[in-house]
């Protein structure tokens, strides 16, 4: 009996995940088609770019500085064992641009922006505001989802460039001021081994992560059911779902692009 109910549970969960993945794909095609529908919702998109990009800056800045700083500390204590302290700058720069900048910034933005998208659209759903849009001959996907999707796609790369830069600065600060590495060595080693592709691939990843955050956040909000409790659930699912998808797609993007 135990085994059967266990299998039953696994089966139901699998089906529900597949179901949601299907909903994601359908929503994605509707959004992609919506992007080319005139008139493009420019004003709403700019509003969202401010919300997603500008307002996320403080969170991303703090995350990046401290990640770069701790990376310098850890690398130093490890590399000292075989006398490679001079390479701290290289490790910080490569880790930040290739992995930590895009992934950590995106996960922070998923927590901040993905959740608020789910909560806002979810509230609009349960208070019939989305129905009201339809009655006023306005396509809610074009009006609500397209601006968020486009704004996240554009702004995440900018945030990640910021994160890369500030991570390197955080690492520099710790290496030079706390650990006593020479400033010229740190900068030279950073620039010597950093390639343009390290940064550019990070930017491509960021654009993909931006699409994931907006798509999942909007999907969870848009299809919310069950009042205030449903909005709460949607918010959680948006953050967890987007974060997991970012981590998984990060692996495949890395394998594919580098």
């Amino acid at each position, binding site marked *: 009996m135990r085994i059967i109910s266990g299998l039953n549970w696994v089966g139901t969960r699998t089906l529900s995940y597949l179901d949601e993945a299907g909903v994601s794909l359908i929503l994605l095609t509707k959004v992609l088609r919506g992007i080319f529908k005139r008139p493009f919702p420019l004003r709403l998109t700019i509003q969202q770019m401010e919300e997603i990009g500008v307002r996320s800056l403080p969170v991303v800045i703090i995350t990046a500085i401290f990640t770069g700083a701790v990376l310098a500390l850890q690398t130093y204590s490890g590399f000292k064992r075989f006398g490679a302290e001079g390479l701290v700058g290289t490790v910080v720069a490569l880790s930040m641009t290739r992995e930590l900048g895009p992934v950590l910034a995106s996960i922070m933005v998923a927590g901040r922006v993905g959740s608020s998208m789910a909560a806002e659209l979810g509230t609009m759903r349960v208070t019939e505001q989305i129905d*009201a849009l339809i009655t006023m001959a306005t396509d809610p996907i074009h009006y609500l989802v397209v601006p968020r999707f486009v704004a996240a796609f554009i702004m995440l790369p900018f945030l990640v460039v910021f994160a890369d830069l500030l991570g390197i600065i955080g690492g520099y600060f710790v290496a030079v001021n706390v650990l006593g590495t020479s400033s010229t060595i740190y900068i030279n080693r950073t620039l010597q081994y950093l390639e343009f592709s390290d940064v550019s691939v990070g930017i491509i990843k960021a654009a993909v992560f931006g699409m994931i955050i907006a798509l999942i956040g909007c999907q969870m909000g848009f299809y919310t059911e069950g009042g205030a409790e449903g909005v709460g659930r949607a918010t959680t699912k948006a953050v967890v779902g987007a974060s997991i998808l970012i981590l998984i797609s990060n692996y495949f993007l890395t394998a594919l692009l580098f």
Partner: protein
Amino acid sequence: MSDQPTIRIRGLKKSFGNKVVLDGTNLDVWPGESVVVIGQSGVGKSVLIKCIIGILTPDEGTIEIDGELITAAGFRNMDAIRRKFGMLFQYAALFDSLKVWENVGFGLMRHSDLKPPQIREIVEEKLRMVGMPGTLDMMPSELSGGMRKRVGLARAIAMEPEIMLYDEPTTGLDPIRADSINDLIIQLREELCVASITITHDMVSAYKIADRISMLHKGKLIATGTVDEIRDSDNPYVQQFIHGRAEGPIRDE
């Protein structure tokens, strides 16, 4: 009166999972006529009007608006038909992020070539009609429930619709505010000559605003008639409902 109804519904069916909500519903609404659909909470009254305006897609049956079959209309076409409608939602469904005037002028902003100052003028006039002048720059969160409904009403009539749909217009309001909403509905019908469907379980309101009343029970409209016909109906279901008795053929399941 023309011989073509504004809304003609035939054999409408809609289920959610195993739950049959509408099971072959028929209804005609004539130009300028006010039809009130009564029925218990959760009986599918909202589903009916959401099918009419195309928020929900019925499983079977046909809906014609001015002789045009909308159940087969493509999406693009549907938006053209939706512009004939105004809808007042149960909790007004104002857009939280927009000011009152942007709410009321939403349709005009998106579907007309008018400039914002002209739209504000029209909005001001509509707000005066519903007794809410001078609230243009307020946010919906600053308004009480009754005021939100009035603004919702102003938004619904801003595009000068031919058909109004009212979803529980008096629910959640005190009797005095409820009656002023009733007066507004009658005034709009008389001034703008719109056909309307109102769903409610408030019998006071139903008697006041209806030309005809129709009762929805178990997915079918089981009795339709003028206010007097319904009041004198010998249908036991209707009698139990309009007198609000717990005892009778309708039971909670």
